[in-house]
């Protein structure tokens, strides 16, 4: 074949390359070890439970004055 490839041939090669990449990707994904959904959600919940105390947007502040965005009163203590 002529060393100069036709545009059609190039397109064909490109398509081939794309398909090969997709398959490589899918093979790679097929090898992933998957966990049960119940276990994954359980772990997400455990993380959440162990950090809920420091989640001020949920638990609030033990004293309102600890909120850095609380509007300060008009008199400041010197």
């Amino acid at each position, binding site marked *: 074949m002529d060393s100069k490839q036709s545009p059609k041939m190039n397109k*064909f090669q490109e*398509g*081939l390359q794309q*398909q*090969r990449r*997709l*398959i490589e*990707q*899918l*093979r*790679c*994904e*097929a090898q*992933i070890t*998957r*966990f*049960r*959904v*119940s*276990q*994954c*959600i359980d*772990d*997400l*919940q455990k*993380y*959440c*439970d162990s*950090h*809920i105390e*420091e*989640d*001020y*947007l*949920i638990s*609030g502040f033990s004293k309102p004055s600890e*909120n*850095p*965005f*609380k*509007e300060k009163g008009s008199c400041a203590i010197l």
Partner: protein
Amino acid sequence: MYAEINMATEALRAENPDSIEALSREAESLKARLSEEKAKLNDLDYCVIGQRLESLQNFNIKPRRTLKGHQGKVLCMDWSSDKRHIVSSSQDGKMLIWDAFTTNKEHAITMPTTWVMACSYGPSGNVVACGGLDNKCTLYPLSMEEDPATKKKAVATHTSYLSCCSFTSSDHQILTGSGDSTCALWDVENAQLIQSFHGHAGDVMSIDLSPTETGNIFVSGGCDKVAMVWDMRTGDCVQVFDGHESDINSVKFYPSGDAFATGSDDATCRLFDLRADREVNCYKKDSIIFGCNAVDFSVSGRVLFGGYNDYTVNVWDALKGTRITILYCHDNRVSCLGVSPDGTSLCTGSWDYTLRVWA
């Protein structure tokens, strides 16, 4: 006729086992096997789990500050690691640095472009990066003595607009996402490409780095409706997550790093788990018909904030999948939002030209 064609393709396949047709077939069978495998592990409906959990009580955050100064739509914002300063960028080509406590503007940087869609604080708090329709990511060291613009440095260049950027664990590397459908990791010092990430079939809209120290992975979402998880060192896409029916505008890791949330133009937010390799929750309501532009978690991961095109912020219970409340106070689309690093406050930015801080 049919038999003839069949024979011809059979012959072709025998000659050339790598024909596109043969490859497509293999791809299809691999895809089928994958979804079968994933379905097998879906042993528990998340609705069931949600019912077992107690509802969150007393969720009560209020608007505390209004940051006024942009003369165009606010497009992006980021918190400094000092939990006090905020960088925001706007359609008018300006980037502003705010002291969120006092609402003072400490720096105003004018970009040579409009639509500055991405901005990010460096981990040290001494540098910010931004970009947009200029297709570039430019760094600005912050100092009180000098105008940051005099020390600016272009670090990254894409072939289309810059949609998002984020420093890695240091000021020395920055990850960018672009309308050219790629992501890229750059060395800041030499302004050189370290790794590029090809795989999306549409504009990349959002990226987020794994919060785990050993992660070395990041997630990206884009207009091809899929989210991809990447290995930063090799440049390989290691997982692909589909399910959204329209553009993904925002991606954000769950604080443990095991899952991530997405916000999409299909008016839903979703939770994808890396280890289950699938969607594990979907946050939606019939009454919500507008797209979601931005998502972020509270520090425990229990609450997911979503900024929507209907001017609201929907606050979701990330585990139960139910809506806790709605935050109203912007007069136009909510385009960006972020929880402060210490988890005390939420900042929202809007097309109404303002940012608000909630606590």
